[in-house]
């Protein structure tokens, strides 16, 4: 995968994960154009489109578009499954996830994504294991913070 974008129906970016090195300017340009292209598509249309020299796979979940750019030899249908798995993970983590969850907890959306995909490829194919790892990492974060607080008091 080259990059993944999450954006609302008004075109506001909610998450961007880039797996290829591009300048900020290029990223903005690509984002702008791709968002426009995807938003222009009608509801019943195909989830795949050829954009520039990339294959783009996108799917809308409620008010959010999940959009991935994959390489020529990648399997489009399994990419749809990857998107779906990510949504399932978010859903399990936030408990019936909605766009606001992702807005106000964007850093967690990233942490979850980074526990599911690494370098643009799926790293863990078991939903349970991904969620377990996030849980453990969150716990670690809490514990450490508490440790810090205690030390200040003394």
């Amino acid at each position, binding site marked *: 995968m080259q990059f993944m974008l999450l954006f609302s129906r008004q075109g506001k970016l909610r998450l961007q994960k880039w797996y290829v090195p591009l300048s900020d300017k290029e990223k903005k340009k690509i984002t702008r154009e791709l968002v426009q292209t995807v938003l222009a598509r009608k509801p019943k249309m*195909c989830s795949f489109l050829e954009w520039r020299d990339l294959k783009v796979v996108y799917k809308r979940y409620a008010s959010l578009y999940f959009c991935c750019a994959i390489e020529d030899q990648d399997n489009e249908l399994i990419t749809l499954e990857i998107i779906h798995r990510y949504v399932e993970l978010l859903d399990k983590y936030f408990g019936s996830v909605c766009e606001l969850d992702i807005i106000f907890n964007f850093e967690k959306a990233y942490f979850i994504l980074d526990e599911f995909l690494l370098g643009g*490829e799926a790293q863990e194919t078991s939903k349970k294991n991904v969620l377990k790892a996030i849980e453990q990492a969150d716990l670690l974060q809490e514990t450490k913070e508490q440790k810090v607080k205690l030390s200040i008091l003394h």
Partner: protein
Amino acid sequence: MSPSVPLQEMIRAIRSARTQCEERGVIQRECAAIRAQFRQADNGGRSHNLAKLLYVHMLGYPAHFGQMECVRMIASPRYSEKRVGYLGAMMLLDEKQDASLLITNSIKNDLSHSNQYVQSLALCTLACMGSAEMCRDLAPEIDRLLRASNSYIKKKAALCAVHIVRKVHDLGELFAPAARSLLAEKNHGVLHGAVVLIIELCERNPETLERFRKTVPDLVQIMKGLVLSGYSPEHDVAGISDPFLQVRILRLLRILGHNNEGASDAMNDLLAQVATNTDSTKTVGNAVLYETVLTVLDIKSESGLRVLAVNILGRFLLNNDRNIRYIAMTSLQKIVGTDHNAVQRHRGTIVDCLKDQDASVKRRALELSLALVSASNVRSMMKELLLFLSSCPAELKAHAASGIFNAAERYAPSQRWHIDTILHVLTTAGGDVRDETVPNLIQLITNASELHCYTVHKLYRALLTDISQQSLVQVACWCIGEYGDLLLRGECQETEAVQVTEDDVLDALETVLQSHMSSPGPLTACLSLHHFTTASRIRSIVSIYGSCIDVELQQRAVEYNALFKKYDHMSLFPPPVCGFPQVCDLLDLLGGSEETLQPSPAVGAPAPGLLINTASTAGGDLLDLLGVLEPAPLAPAPTVPVYEKDGVTLTLSCEKQSDTGLTVTLTASNSTDSDISSFTLQAAVPKLYLSLAGPFLAASHYIKSFLLQVNLKMRVRISYTSQGSAFQDTVQIDSFPGLDAAGQ
């Protein structure tokens, strides 16, 4: 995990801004505060600050001042700070930034951290934005982790290695042994990572590929386990056990089996099993089937398996899900060259997809349909394609039109059908055809001499119905001018007879002129018709346009008026023929031997026009020179040498035989001691070379050959054998004795 209150407050504040300006104000204030915080000593709230900055960055505002903070945070002992620091690094520090190198050391340390979640952060960041330099630096660490760590780290290390290999290809060798041993692991995450790594290694290095071929039996075993095993809750997706891993393994098998009989045989049964057993009611099953089909078609599979694969694609074509139809066509496109007949069997369904609502599906269907046109189905396919053209989305029109033209040219069952097809395209999509369509069509029409009557009638009728398509109008005007006599004659074998009077024709031409298309075509057509018809109405039309606002039309009208006045007595000229600069190679020698003249040629010019069919008609009347219409005093023809080399000399002399003919005599002589044999001389003149005052070509791509002046150029090629060696030379002659610079 508890939410970051400061972060959420800021987000709320930004979102409540009612205008862009207000939002910018809030952001500016927040950024100032963040900056101040960064400068302060450690206050326990650093991660919140950086998180805020990252949010602001996602909204599109500059955040580069946070880069150093990321570097500091990554080096912090606190996990919360590391976590946000690394996230910041992935968002703000791409490999192009200098600051990215500063985190190499932190990453190195964290890779050996006692806590696996810290290790994980480092691995993730390296795999996301590691530069080539960082990769080279840390590769040995990754290799170590690939061998000796827990599954959680191994799977990440494998994908990190993938990134490293993509950045620094040579390091592939380093990871190959570890990758091999990872295939023995049971953990799906590790297996998946291992397969991805092996794919990467094999794609980059053919030797590595050879070595990994030995793993085919192992891979087949793993797949069998996945496909035949019972329900595994951890990895199950709609009844398929770990589809992600299955798809990866299938892809690796594809690479290993490609062009290799042995490997392909070893996987044949498995592929058949997967193809038949996988449940295709849900997308996930189809994803696996899709990958299986791709693999079957790309390795040396048995024909039975191949047929099975194409049939699966055929089933996909009938699937309700548009996505499935789309990928079916993408796959069929890949094999339409190699398995043409198999794909032909599904032609009906593919053609149906032309009518799909989705533009992506339409595009795929168009590509595939064009590839499936053959001599046997061209009539029916063309019907469908023309139907498609009339309603297809704008972005596909040009492609469809040119595809149709190509197909028509290759498989046209008859000339009439060909002309009809092109006319149909021009009527429906005239605006989207390429420029050379018009001259090509004119060429075609001219060649189809039996159909001239039919064509001109048809074009005339088309002109009457619709004058909005520029290219169609151009061709129609030309045709009417050219074959106006056939039009006026009324009878026609191929279509119903229609009585067309001169006035009807002139009405039509006038309508075109008045439609502001500023194309001189109709005027020129008038000029041609001049000698078929009575002159008076034509002259009045043309003279009206002598005061037209459009400069081009005005110029032409004035010139034509002059012609009328001057050459009134020439109203019975034989119909001139026209040629096209784009189609013929101006000043290029026509390839082939059609133009071979005998040595010492005398070129006579029986008619003042030029004939254009060089390729199809052979013979000596091809090099008629343009007639010069002004009578000139006949002076004795001077002879000038035009070529002299190696003892071979060519001299040239011109003589005006008559008002309309020019004779050019080329004399070759051999002044060497030895004989020259196999002497051939080829001469070519531009088909049409005009220099009427003012631009004559403009929007129309055809020209009439009424000329007042001629600039004659000739290119001569000689070839001969002398003393056993072959010689060839070319010379261009720009000036002709007896003619002045203007060719008079």
